[in-house]
């Protein structure tokens, strides 16, 4: 009797562990997630013309220091803009009201993140406030489109144009890597 008790206990905990693992895989690694409790924080919103492929969970940083996460991405159907809700760690409660938010890329092909730049105002952003100054995501396709248009105009001196065209694409990741 004693032996079968411990055996049942072992079987039971194994099965429980297995189903816990399955539950973790379906809820924590996919987008149908259930978010666990988060530390003290406050919310800010910002409206962008274009957010590129910014995703929920992307980091929000200032001077390269991570301050929070993107928690929600919505759409304002009056202004036709994307509304990004950010959750900022309660420790960083001194962000000036005239700060601006821009969307940057981590590396050349990496994900997008939001970089905040502090303004000079004496008042600070509070919960549910909106950041008014925003800069849209840098969309690679638009840049290439512009370059192609320049090529068409440039015509003959395509070689010198080409070296110029390569330059921003190559320096871009270095520039954003510094901000990381």
């Amino acid at each position: 009797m004693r032996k079968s008790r411990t055996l049942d206990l072992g079987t039971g905990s194994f099965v429980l562990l297995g189903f816990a693992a399955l539950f973790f895989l379906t809820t924590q690694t996919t987008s149908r997630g259930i978010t666990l409790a988060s530390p003290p924080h406050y919310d800010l919103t910002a409206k962008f013309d274009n957010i590129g492929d910014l995703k929920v969970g992307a980091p929000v940083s200032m001077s390269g220091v991570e301050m929070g996460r993107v928690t929600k991405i919505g759409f304002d159907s009056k202004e036709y803009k994307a509304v990004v809700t950010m959750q900022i760690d309660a420790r960083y409660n001194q962000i000036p009201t005239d700060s601006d938010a821009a969307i940057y890329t981590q590396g050349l092909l990496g994900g997008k993140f939001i970089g905040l730049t502090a303004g000079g105002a004496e008042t600070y952003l509070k919960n549910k406030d909106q950041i008014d100054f925003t800069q849209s995501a840098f969309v690679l396709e638009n840049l290439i489109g512009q370059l192609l248009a320049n090529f068409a105009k440039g015509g003959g001196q395509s070689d010198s144009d080409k070296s110029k065209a390569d330059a921003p694409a190559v320096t871009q990741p270095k520039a954003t890597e510094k901000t990381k």
Partner: protein
Amino acid sequence: MKLIEELWESLRDALVGLGAVARFLLRLLAAAPRALLRLDLISQQIYNAGALSLVIIMLSGLFVGMVLGLQGFQLLQRFGSEEALGTAAAIGLVKELGPVVTALLFAGRAGTALASELGLMRATDQISAMEMMAVDPIRRVVVPRFLGGVIAMPLLAAIFSVIGIYGAQLVGVQIMGVDGGSFWSQMRAAVGLRDINEGIVKSCIFGVTCSLIAVYQGYYAEPTAEGVGRATTRTVVTSAVFILFLDYLVTAAFL
């Protein structure tokens, strides 16, 4: 001429073996509903096949995940997209490495134990003794072991994947310095329920394959010490080949 004859012979043997295994599977399935009444026997086999394999599965999962983290980081760093490490590790583990490596380990750990146990029962006439007492050895001995393996395998594969993802996270985020939030958020954005389903389907199929091969080889082992040894070896070899072959088929079916 001789060569062709021998080839034909071995091909025929393989076909006969396949047919016999298929027939054995049908026999097991036919006996399964009544064997389900003895849940205690099945739970004991889940313990033998699953709980006792936990340590090796968890250790292997951890190291496979850590290696994935290291290799993936080196590769992705070249393209400046280390943040995709979470996606790469999760998809690799959930869809491929989790089910396949778990199944190979399962064949080595639980499959051999099943085959040698059944083979020894055959060699020491315990199975004949049961038949004498009008106890159906298939229902009393074989089916609980088969079902135990079938139930344990998907759970082990899921545990392997989870530990592996944490292993990749350990190396990628804690040691190599990938942003933890990006690691998880890119993973969540890229991994769908379909990927998880593929992993579950694969591990279920591998569970049936491994357990079936093990009980078949053990049950029909030659009743000698040598025969039991051969049955054990054959269990591992056949399981490995079938796992990798079926893995290709299932992957193709899910594309």
